[in-house]
């Protein structure tokens, strides 16, 4: 962790050599991130409810998911470039240092730009949370940070999982993007918007439903439209831990099968 901070700080300083570029890129990132928000606004301009959810509720789902994703992306987004490192052979230089290559890659090119993604969801949550039509019991209050942290861990595990695949199949970067970024996009809307089988897949295969949907139902005090057991609503932390274990195993297996490049 200390090493990660150190590396990130170093990259930050490297990026700070071009302050104007850093600022503009940060601004651009924040604006692109805010576009998702514009999409939601556009929908609610035509209808008061989406799939039975009010604007506040959808924004709550958006805010928690986007926040979790932005944090995971800030911390681990660099791993999507693993394939590039494998191809160029630069992973070798990371492997001869006494620090996990995962930390080195994750921290690589750490820029404040990634953090700019945090701004729109943070603003949305600040506005929406006090307006949600729910009774704030201690359980619900506690659930908000719990779901955010679980969401971060789930997204982070997905980053690591998709990176692990790149040890073996180098050219999968675009495909993995559809899982990481696609997953982030999907979870911004109520799951009832999607087909039933698809939601089951998101619950039990790639457990994106646990980022914000299941715990969100708990906070919003809603019955599950798909009729899944209520216990699932509290399962996010367990799912996060489980998925992390799977990701760690995959990463280690990937590293073992790493073949390096010629000379």
């Amino acid at each position, binding site marked *: 962790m200390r*090493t990660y901070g*150190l*590396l990130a700080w*170093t*990259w930050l*300083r*490297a*990026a700070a*050599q071009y302050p104007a570029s850093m600022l503009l890129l940060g601004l651009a990132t924040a604006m692109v991130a805010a576009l998702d928000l514009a999409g939601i606004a556009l929908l609610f301009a035509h209808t008061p409810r989406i799939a039975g959810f009010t604007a506040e509720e959808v924004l709550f789902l958006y805010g928690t998911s986007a926040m979790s994703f932005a944090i995971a992306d800030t911390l681990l987004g660099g791993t999507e470039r693993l394939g590039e490192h494998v191809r*160029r*052979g*630069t992973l*070798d*230089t990371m*492997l*001869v*240092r*006494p*620090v*996990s290559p995962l930390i080195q890659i994750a921290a690589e090119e750490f820029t404040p730009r990634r953090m700019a993604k945090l701004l729109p969801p943070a603003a949305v949550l600040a506005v929406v949370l006090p307006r949600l039509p729910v009774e704030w019991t201690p359980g619900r209050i506690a659930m908000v940070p719990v779901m955010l942290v679980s969401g971060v861990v789930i997204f982070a595990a997905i980053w690591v999982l998709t990176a692990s695949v790149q040890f073996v199949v180098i050219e999968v970067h675009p495909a993995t993007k559809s899982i990481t970024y696609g997953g982030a996009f999907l979870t911004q809307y109520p799951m009832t918007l999607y087909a039933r089988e698809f939601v089951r897949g998101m619950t039990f295969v790639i457990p994106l439903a646990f980022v914000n949907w299941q715990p969100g139902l708990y906070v919003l005090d809603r019955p599950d439209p798909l009729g899944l057991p209520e216990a699932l609503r509290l399962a996010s932390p367990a799912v996060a831990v489980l998925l992390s274990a799977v990701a760690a195993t995959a990463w280690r297996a990937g590293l*073992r099968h*790493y*073949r*390096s490049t*010629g*000379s």
Partner: protein
Amino acid sequence: MIEVRDVRKTFTVRSGRLRRRRTMVRAVDGVSFTVREGEFVGYLGSNGAGKSTTIKMLTGILTPTSGSVRVAGLDPARRRTALARRIGVVFGQRTTLWWDLPLRDSLTLIRHLYRVDPVEHRRRLEELTELLDLGPFLGTPVRQLSLGQRMRGDLAAALLHAPPLLVLDEPTIGLDVVSKATVRGFLERLNAEHGTTILLTTHDLGDIERLCRRVMIIDRGRLAYDGDLERLRTSVAADRMLVVDLARPAPPVQLDGIGVERVDGPRQWLRVPRGMNAAAVVAALARRYEIADIALREPDIEEVVTRLYRTSGAFGAE
């Protein structure tokens, strides 16, 4: 320091677009050797002979398919991170430094990564700065350094944690004559004064001649030779070359058992087979010609290696 026992590494290579065929390539095929503390070993081989694969197994980057490897008392594949603290690695073709940072900051970061004590670090850095003459460009971002400067920076980075073993993969590749000399001189001192064990792969036979007492040659995944440089020269019975400057230009000299390799004005290159007394040849020559100057050249390693390849059939009819 290094112990390699019957190590193999096989890669499966897929070929063909539609019908994928899998072929097994044996990059390293049963290699064994031991490197003792304080040795300076050159590791030679043509492209694709298995040099880099061996180095990668020694540093824990690749896991051997079979056989055992022990480096600095550790199994590299299992204890890669622990091993990294005990060895220094330099890849000639890629830098371990941070592109946008000044060299000094890169080295400070390395101190943190290796958890070197700050006082110890300052002492080492001072010493390395002096030996490698880093002073003039410590504050320059790495991307602005020349290749020679960058290589010196990389050497410093690999040695800041005072590893007892240094592994170099093509450290002089692409360097100009002056930088090469600096790097070689530094490695020589490091080995002699600090007793650092050094294993170096290279294409540049000059590196080997200048630095290594012991040479290992790998060919198609197998060790073709392991021993000292002198014995390599004699064992492949490479001929010595007698370079004679005659007083005036002459047709190729006629001496029993001596072939003339080249004639350039008054200078002639005579091939003296192993086992023939060079002094006798010179004496016979002096009786019949007026000689201005004379020099006897030991076969250079290039020739020796080519011969070795030829006898082991590596290059067929070259």
